């Protein structure tokens, strides 16, 4: 599976819709979203963000993910080479009605956010038994 060489990707900056109150760059995290029978799972790459600095907000079918980072550089460091920018992460998704918004769970590990969005009962696929007549 991993025979492929990883390519460096430029971080995409968020195109502003209205201004942010905090200055500094804002990036769009890369995500994987997959669905199985019970839930929708979202994985987002948010390097530099720990569990305490991530905000997940569900409101009116909008899921908003905001991650805040602590700048890695300490005082007194001079930059010699800068190939990536550091800043907040921000991404917004529209959720379908089928998500049970009360049961969303999240965790952050190694800079990856895992968000599990369980489906409501009626949206789960049911096999319909056909009775022989």
């Amino acid at each position, binding site marked *: 599976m991993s025979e492929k060489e990883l390519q460096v990707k430029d971080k995409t900056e968020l195109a502003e819709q209205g201004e942010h109150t905090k200055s500094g760059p804002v990036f769009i995290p890369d995500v994987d979203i997959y669905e199985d029978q019970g839930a929708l799972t979202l994985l987002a790459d948010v390097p530099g963000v720990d569990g305490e600095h991530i905000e997940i907000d569900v409101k009116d079918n909008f899921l908003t993910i905001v991650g805040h980072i602590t700048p890695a550089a300490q005082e007194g*460091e001079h930059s010699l080479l800068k190939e990536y920018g550091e800043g907040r992460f921000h991404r917004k998704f529209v959720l379908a009605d089928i998500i049970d918004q009360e049961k969303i769970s999240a965790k952050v590990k190694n*800079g990856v956010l895992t968000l599990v969005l369980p489906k409501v009962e009626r949206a789960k696929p049911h096999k319909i038994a056909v009775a022989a007549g």
Partner: protein
Amino acid sequence: MAILKWTPRPFRANLVNDFIRLQREVNQLFSGVTESPGVNLTRTSGVYPALNLSEDDENLYVRAEIPGIEPEQVDLLIEGDNLTIRGQRTIPDADKKVNYHRRERESGYFRRVLTLPTTVDHSKVAATVKDGVLTITLPKAEAVKPKQIKILAA
């Protein structure tokens, strides 16, 4: 004295237009600056992972964003002034039965060499991974550390 018909100068309209023009020009002047505040990138090498390198009097610091990579999946090698970062990023397939809506995160192996700008003390190099950010601290060799030179009165 000739009597001339007075044409009211469209004073206010002009003033407004001037301000609009001024605003546009000022915006243009700053457009290149304000588009990406704080991000002033060096050209990237095109090799994963992207690195940030910085220094202070004592150390060189190399940082990379490697989300989802466990420390044991990264190999660091230092040889002379060359620092090699190799590793692999795997994305566990949660289940073969899942259907993907989006797949933007990538997996694969990587090999990157960085030539360090100064000589470092190989025996004291340390590396940590925290929240998906790799930090390599490379203490500078004694010979290249800045030293104050005392001037003696003759």
